[in-house]
C-alpha cells in the first residue's frame, strides 16, 4: 500500500516539524524516505502487472474495488514517486530561506497520494476525490510563498480554474451515474446514450483543465512560473500528465470509441503544440518558458497517443508513454536547475542566467543536458522519444495522421528557436558592468546537486539505453491500446 505509506508519512512529517521543530534538512530526508519506501512498495506491483494481473484494493460492496493497478497507472505513479523523492531531497536546501516546512512536506506527500489515486482509481467517485486532494495540495504549494503577491495570485488563478474543472467533472459524474447507475471504470459495451455522452464531455473538459489542454491551459504558465521550482518540477513533470492519463482512461471506459478519441486528440494536439512552442518563443522568464514547453510536450503526447488510438498502433501509444517518462526526467532537471540559479544568483528572467556556466558549472551542464534533451538532440532521452514518436506516427494511415506528423516536425524545429538560445545564455560571458556577478564558481549544496546529477544521468541513460524503459512503457501502451479495442 504505497499510498497509505505516504499518508502516514504526511502525518509523521507534519508532527515532527510541528512538535519537535525539526530542521528542514531532516524533514526533507524523512519525506524522501517515505517516498523511497512507497516506491519500493510499488515495485512488486510492476511484477504483478507484468504477469498480466491487475491487483485491486478495497472492496466496497457490489460497486467493486476502489483502486485498481494497471501498467499505465503504475508507470505514472512510479515516475511521480521517483520525482518526488528527488524533489524532497532537493528541497532540503532549496527551502532554507523559507519557513513553515512542516506544511510543505506533508503537502508534497499528499500531492503524490492524490496523483496516485487519480491514475489508480477504479471508479469515478474515487477519481474525483483523489483529484481534489491532488489539486488542493497543488494550489497550496503554488501559493506556498505567501508573502509574494504574485504567488498568491497564481495560486488563486489555479484554484479558480481548477475548481471550475472540478465542478464540471462532478456534473459529468452525476450525469453518468444518473444514466448508467454505476461509476466503475470498466470498458462499457455498446454505444453510450445521449446523457452519458454529455457527462463524458463534462468529464473530459474538467480533466482537460487539469491537464493543461489548450485552450484551458491559461493557469499553467502562472502557476509554474510563480510556484517554488520544486513544485513546478512536480506540476510540469507529472501532475499534468496524470490528469491526462485519467482523461484517456475515462474516455475509453465510458464508451468513447478509440477512433473518435484519437481523432479528437490529434486535432487538439495541433493547436496545443503550436501554441505551446509559439508562446515559449516570446517568454522573458525562464520558468514560463519551461511551462510553455510543457504545454507543447503535452501536445506531443496527445498527438502520439491520438495516432495510436485512431489507427490502433500499439507502438505509438508506447512511444507516448516513453515520451512521458523522458519528459518527466528532463523537465525535472530543468526546473531544479532553474531553482539552483534562483537560490544562489536570484535569476528569474532568462537573461539573468547569463554566466551560469562560469558560476555554477555543474548546474549549467545539467541544465544543458535537460534543455538539449527537450530539444531532441541525440543521444539524450528526448531524441529517443522523438524517434519512437516518429516511428509510431508514421504508421498512421491517412491524411489526419500525416498532417499531425508534419505539424509535429515543424514544431520540433520551432522549439529549437527557444531551447538553443537558452543554452547559449547559460554559457554567455557576463558583461563587465555586472561586476557583482563575476564572482567565481559557487559551491552548491550536495542536497541540490545529488538530484540534479541523478536526473541528468537518467536523461542520458534513457537516451543511450532505452531498452529497460521501453519494456515498462510497452506494457502501459499495450494496456491502453487494449482498452481502446
Amino acid at each position, binding site marked *: 500500500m504505497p499510498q497509505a505509506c505516504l499518508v502516514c508519512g504526511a502525518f509523521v512529517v507534519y508532527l515532527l516539524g510541528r512538535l519537535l521543530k525539526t530542521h528542514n534538512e531532516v524533514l526533507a530526508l524523512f519525506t524522501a524516505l517515505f517516498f523511497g519506501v512507497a516506491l519500493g512498495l510499488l515495485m512488486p506491483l510492476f511484477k504483478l502487472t507484468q504477469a498480466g494481473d491487475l491487483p485491486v484494493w478495497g472492496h466496497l460492496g457490489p460497486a467493486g474495488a476502489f483502486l485498481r493497478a494497471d501498467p499505465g497507472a503504475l508507470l505514472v505513479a512510479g515516475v511521480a514517486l521517483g520525482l518526488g523523492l528527488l524533489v524532497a531531497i532537493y528541497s532540503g536546501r532549496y527551502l532554507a530561506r523559507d519557513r513553515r516546512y512542516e506544511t510543505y512536506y506533508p503537502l508534497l506527500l499528499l500531492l503524490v497520494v492524490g496523483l496516485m489515486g487519480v491514475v489508480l482509481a477504479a471508479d469515478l467517485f474515487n477519481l474525483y476525490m483523489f483529484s481534489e486532494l491532488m489539486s488542493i495540495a497543488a494550489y497550496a504549494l503554488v501559493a506556498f510563498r505567501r508573502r509574494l503577491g504574485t504567488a498568491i495570485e497564481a495560486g488563486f488563478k489555479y484554484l479558480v480554474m481548477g475548481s471550475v474543472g472540478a465542478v464540471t467533472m462532478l456534473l459529468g459524474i452525476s450525469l453518468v451515474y444518473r444514466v448508467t447507475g454505476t461509476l466503475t471504470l470498466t470498458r462499457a459495451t455498446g454505444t453510450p446514450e445521449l446523457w452519458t455522452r454529455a457527462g463524458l464531455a463534462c468529464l473530459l473538459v474538467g480533466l482537460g483543465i487539469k491537464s493543461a489542454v489548450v485552450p484551458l491551459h491559461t493557469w499553467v504558465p502562472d502557476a509554474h512560473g510563480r510556484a517554488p521550482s520544486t513544485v513546478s518540477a512536480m506540476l510540469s513533470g507529472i501532475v499534468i500528465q496524470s490528469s491526462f492519463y485519467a482523461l484517456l482512461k475515462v474516455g475509453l471506459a465510458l464508451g468513447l470509441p478509440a477512433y473518435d478519441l484519437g481523432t479528437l486528440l490529434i486535432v487538439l494536439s495541433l493547436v496545443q503544440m503550436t501554441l505551446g512552442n509559439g508562446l515559449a518563443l516570446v517568454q522573458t522568464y525562464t520558468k514560463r518558458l519551461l511551462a510553455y514547453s510543457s504545454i507543447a510536450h503535452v501536445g506531443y503526447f496527445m498527438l502520439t497517443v491520438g495516432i495510436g488510438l485512431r489507427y490502433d498502433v500499439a507502438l505509438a501509444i508506447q512511444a507516448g508513454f516513453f515520451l512521458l517518462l523522458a519528459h518527466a526526467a528532463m523537465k525535472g532537471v530543468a526546473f531544479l536547475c532553474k531553482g539552483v540559479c534562483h537560490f544562489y544568483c536570484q535569476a528569474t528572467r532568462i537573461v539573468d542566467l547569463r554566466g551560469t556556466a562560469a558560476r555554477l558549472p555543474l548546474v549549467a551542464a545539467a541544465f544543458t543536458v535537460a534543455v*538539449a534533451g527537450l530539444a531532441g*538532440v*541525440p*543521444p539524450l532521452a528526448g*531524441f529517443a522519444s522523438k*524517434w*519512437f514518436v*516518429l*516511428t509510431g506516427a*508514421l*504508421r498512421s494511415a491517412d491524411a489526419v495522421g500525416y498532417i499531425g506528423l508534419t505539424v509535429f*516536425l515543424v514544431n*520540433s*524545429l520551432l522549439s*529549437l*528557436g527557444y531551447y*538553443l*538560445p537558452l543554452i*547559449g545564455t547559460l*554559457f*554567455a560571458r557576463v558583461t563587465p558592468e555586472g561586476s557583482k556577478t563575476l564572482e567565481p564558481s559557487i559551491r552548491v549544496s550536495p542536497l541540490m546537486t545529488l538530484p540534479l546529477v541523478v536526473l541528468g544521468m537518467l536523461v542520458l541513460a534513457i537516451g543511450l*539505453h*532505452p*531498452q529497460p524503459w*521501453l*519494456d515498462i512503457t*510497452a506494457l502501459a501502451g499495450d494496456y491502453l491500446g487494449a482498452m481502446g479495442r
Partner: protein
Amino acid sequence: MNIETMWLVTILGAPLVAALLLCALGGRGARVAGWIAGVAAALSLAGALVLLPALQAGDAPALSFEWIPASNIRLALRLDWLALPFLVTEAAVTLLAVVYAWGYHHADENTAFFYALLMFFAIGMSGTTLADDVFLFYVFWELMLVASSVLIAVWGDGERRTAVALKYFIFTHLGSLMVLVGLIVLYDAAGSGSLSVLREGVALAPVLVTTVITLFIIGFCVKMAIFPLHLWLPDAHAVAPMPVTIMLAAAMLSMGTYGILRFPMSVFNLAQMTSFAVPMMVAGIVSELYGALIALVEQDIKRIIAYSSVSQMGYILFGLGTLTYNGVAGATLHVIFHAIVKALLFMCVGLVIRASGRRNIAELRGLGSAMPVAAICTAVGALAIAGTPPFCIFNSEWMIFSGGFNTAHIGLSILTVFGSLLTVAYALLFVGRIFFGAHPEGLAVKQLPWAMLAPTVLLAILALVGGLFPAPLFDWAMHELPLLLRGAW
C-alpha cells in the same frame, strides 16, 4: 575481437578518448591539448588506412552489438568501399585542421574544450560514414551538427556568432528532420535498422518511394548547401574559426554526398531513381552558376571561398544526378579532390588574414612579394579549383562532364562545362587581387607560424600529386560503384 575490429574501433575510439581526456583536463590541458588531439586524429586516419588492405581482400570490417532489441536497433559499425573515400577524406582533413589549429588558435583556459569539440566533430563525421544502423547514423549525423555549432557559437569571430550558430543549427536541422523521416520510413518498412538489410531493397508503395527519395535528396542537399538551401553556409563559414571552417567545407559538406549515395542511391534501384536525375542535374547547375557568380562579387575573402563551395557542390550533385558510371565516380573523386583544394584555399585565406589582419579583398593587394609561399599555394589552389590540368580537380571534373555527356541531356552538360568558366574567373581574380599589383603602404605583414604553413604546403603538393597519379583513388571509386543502384552498372 580481431585486429581489424580493433582498428575499426580506434577510428572512433581514439578521438573519443582524446575528447574525454581533454574535457577532464579542462583548463590544465591548454598546452598539451593540441598534441593530444593531433595524436588522436592521426590514429583515426591510420585506422582508416590500415583497413584498406582488408577491403581490397574483399573483407568488410564490422562489429555489431545489441542495443535496443525491442526495436531491432543495433550498435553496428561497418566499413565498406562506399564509406572508405569519405572516411579517409574526413580523417585526413581533421588531422590537417588540428595541425593548422596549433598555429591558428591562441591557447587560453578553454583551449582543451576547443580541441575536444573538434574531436567530437570528427567523431560525428567518421561515425556517420561507419554507422551500419539508421538510428546510429542519425545520432552521429546530429553529433556533427551539435559539435560544429557549439564551436561556431563559442569560438566564432564577431558579435553575431551566436546568431549565426543558431541559424546554422536550425537550418541544417530542417534537413536533418527530412532525413530522419526518410530513415524511419525505411527502417519501418525493412523491420530493421541495418544498412546491410536496407541494401537488399525495401518494399514500399510507389508514392512512398517518391516521397522518401525526395526527402532524402532535399535533406542531404541542405548539408551540401545546394542553392537555394545554402543560406546557412556563407555565414557559418565566415564566422567559424579557421580550423572549423576547414572541417566544415572540406569534410562536412561531403557528408551530404555520402548520404545521397548511401540512402537513396543504394537502397533504391535505377528505375526508381531515374525521375530524379534531371532535377538533381538542374539543381547542380544552378548551384554551380549561382555560387560562382556570388563568389565573383563578394568582398570578404572567406566568403568568396565559402561561395565557391556552393558552386563545387553543384558539380558533385550534377555528377550524382547523371546516374551514370562516370558521373558518380567523378562525384566521389570530386569529394576527395575538393576536400584537398578547399582545405588548401581556406588555409591560404587564414594565412592572409593572419598576416595582414584584413579580410576585405578591396583592401588587399600585392601581397605576393611579402608572402611568396602563401601566394604560390593560393595560386595552386585557384588553378586547381578552376579545373586546370594537371591539378587534381581536372580529373574529377573530366569524369563528371563525361558522365553528363553519357546521358540524354547534352544541353545540360554543355551548360555545366561552360559554367566552369565562371569558376576560372573568380579563382583567378581571387589570386590576382590579393597577390599581384603594388604593395600598398601601411599594409604590414606578420610572420606566420610553421604549423599553419606546413599543412598548406602539404596540401598544395597533394593537389598536384592527386592530379598526376589519380589511379589509386579511381580504384576506390570503382569498388564503390557496384554497391550503388543494385549494381546497375
